[in-house]
């Protein structure tokens, strides 16, 4: 059911991207309405600054406008493509200002609301965004084994390298690589089921 809905959405996204590639501003406006929320949320989470996140989001959508023609559906869905574009732009900004540890600290602090225990997060997500896909993913993310969730959050939101994560957590490099890989695959598997 979820897979069918996601596929329909992915097809709609591809059509919008194709129209954007031909200079269709109404398609661009529609895609903005659909994606700006999650992409902005990602930018805020990584940057920890709403103003800077808005600037990053503007850059991302300008990039979507100019690069829509290069989108390859074989490599990823439109949503994942734009997520990775956003993350890339945010990382550029983090590198520019040299304060990426700010978000990392937040994402690894057990006292922080973002990484509260899984049951609390799941409960909050379920009650606030019961029918929301994002809430479902948050719930699934929080159901991952803690060490896997921690590793992929540090890598994805905090943009720490596997070497830095290994050093930070005092774990062997191979262990961190495996946690990232297993965490991502498990999340993907659970989202699809």
């Amino acid at each position, binding site marked *: 059911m979820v897979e069918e809905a996601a596929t329909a959405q992915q097809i709609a996204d591809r059509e919008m991207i194709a129209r954007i590639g031909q200079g269709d501003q109404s398609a661009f406006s529609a895609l903005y309405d659909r994606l700006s929320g999650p992409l902005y949320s990602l930018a805020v989470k990584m940057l920890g600054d709403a103003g800077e996140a808005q600037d990053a989001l503007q850059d991302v959508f300008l990039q979507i406008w100019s690069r829509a023609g290069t989108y390859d559906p074989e490599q990823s869905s439109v949503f994942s493509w734009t*997520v990775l574009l956003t993350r890339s732009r945010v990382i550029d900004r983090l590198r520019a200002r040299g304060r990426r540890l700010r978000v990392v600290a937040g994402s690894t602090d057990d006292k922080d609301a973002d990484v509260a225990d899984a049951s609390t997060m799941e409960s909050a997500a379920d009650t606030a965004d019961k029918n929301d896909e994002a809430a479902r993913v948050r719930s699934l993310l929080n159901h991952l084994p803690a060490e896997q969730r921690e590793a992929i959050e540090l890598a994805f939101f905090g943009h720490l390298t596997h070497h830095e994560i290994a050093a930070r957590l005092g774990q062997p490099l191979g262990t961190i690589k495996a946690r990232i*890989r297993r965490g991502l695959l498990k999340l993907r598997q659970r989202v699809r089921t």
Partner: protein
Amino acid sequence: MISEEQQDQAALYTLGLLNPHEAAAFESELSASDELRYFVRELREAAGDLALGAPSQSPPASLKQRVLREIAMKTERSAPTLTQRASFAWLPWAIAAMLIVFCGVLAFDRARLQRELADVRAADPLMHTIFFTLTPSGSAPADAKATVAWQPGRQSGVIRITNLPAPEPGRDYQLWAVDTAHKDPISAGIIRVDKNGVAQIRFKPVDTAQQVKAFAISLEREGGVPKKEGPILLAGTA
């Protein structure tokens, strides 16, 4: 079959954690394996899912307007052909308009210059002065010479004579204006030279000269005559 090591590399590649050398090596493997490409695609989707783990927030509505404005500007900039064609289409008209304006300015300037020239001519006597050089004729000394500056508008002139000895007693030199409108020369007065044979006198013909074609000096009875009687000593045209 994808090895665990490849899977680890694929995960790091998807998250952009490989260094450039490692990424290039992995991309080489990627291009050679459909299975690996599919695996990476799944990891990319997982990364997309992961983004949904961020607490939901909405950008301000003004941001969309900002982005759409920027897009509209980009579109205008990236479609120069039409704009340029339109610009070039107007160019001949613009040039023609400029030429008309330019010609108008020139005409106006020409009229202004003509007015200024007329003013200058009116203000500067030299602009209305005709010069006549009188040379010896008959019994006058060979080195005698006279120059007349004649202003028709004012019906007056100045004559300067050199090397013309004073006439014998009872005789005077008399200046004549030879005018096309008069049958006989018009008297312009008696001229008296100093002991050095030099004279510079302002004169005015006794009658209106329409178009003077020459001036002449004759030797006349003392006090002058109304109509030339004596011989011409100096004469010249303009």
